[in-house]
């Protein structure tokens, strides 16, 4: 049995070009990227919440007179701004 015969036998097994396969690959890549970003965002939010819980007593003491009524609003705003600006820095660069 020579090489061309082997090649011909194997060539018959090549699957047809499938656009669905290409789409499935790209969808899988997008899903993985989304999951990674979601995990990073959740992780960041948890860290921010823990830090906030740690520093809150001191902040309440300092700002009790002036900013106390607005503290929860400011804290949420701070977390959102922080997450917005920090998240792209923390995620690995898209190659």
């Amino acid at each position, binding site marked *: 049995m*020579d090489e061309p015969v*082997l*090649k011909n036998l*194997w060539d018959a097994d090549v699957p047809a070009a499938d656009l669905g396969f290409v789409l499935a*690959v790209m969808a899988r*890549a997008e899903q993985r990227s989304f999951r990674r970003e979601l995990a990073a965002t959740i992780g960041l939010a948890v860290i921010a919440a823990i830090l906030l819980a740690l520093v809150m007593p001191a902040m309440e003491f300092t700002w009790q007179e002036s900013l106390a009524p607005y503290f929860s609003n400011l804290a949420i705003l701070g977390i959102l701004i922080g997450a917005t600006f920090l998240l792209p820095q923390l995620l690995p*660069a898209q190659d």
Partner: protein
Amino acid sequence: MTDGTAEAAWVQDARAGSAAAFGRLVQMHQQALRAFLRRLCGNAADADDLAQESFVFAWEHIGRFDPARSFRPWLFGIAWRKHREGKRGWLRLLKRESAAVEGETSFAPDPGLKLDLVKAAETLPLEQRAAILLCLGAEFTHMEAAQALALPLGTVKSHVARGREKLAAMLGGSNG
């Protein structure tokens, strides 16, 4: 534009973050990679899953790819490593068993000589089978196969020569 220059342009665009360019690379190589993995796995569903995983891994790590080299051996090298890891992984084994329980059809080649070829190839050691499949089945040069399999060139040449001899000996009777 030839295939080679088109591929180089798509690789460059994909490295710059173009998903569309990477999609074209997937389209260009999917048939050869799926065929290689089907022959290696012996199961179409597992092979296509592995091919998707390989492409996704390639997309996520394309920044590490050296554009001075050929894309195809790099891609097939990823698939080969994933196949080897998968053979050791308990999760894949579990999935394969559950698929068998669900009655999923496995890759069924045509009867006759082709079936003999598939059976004969399955008896070869894994590295030898991969070298044969790349060089005879996917038209890789020995050098490309050596890059993909991360083996010395001499080892690949030896695998191909010995594998071909074994296949010829095993199929000699079938071929008359």
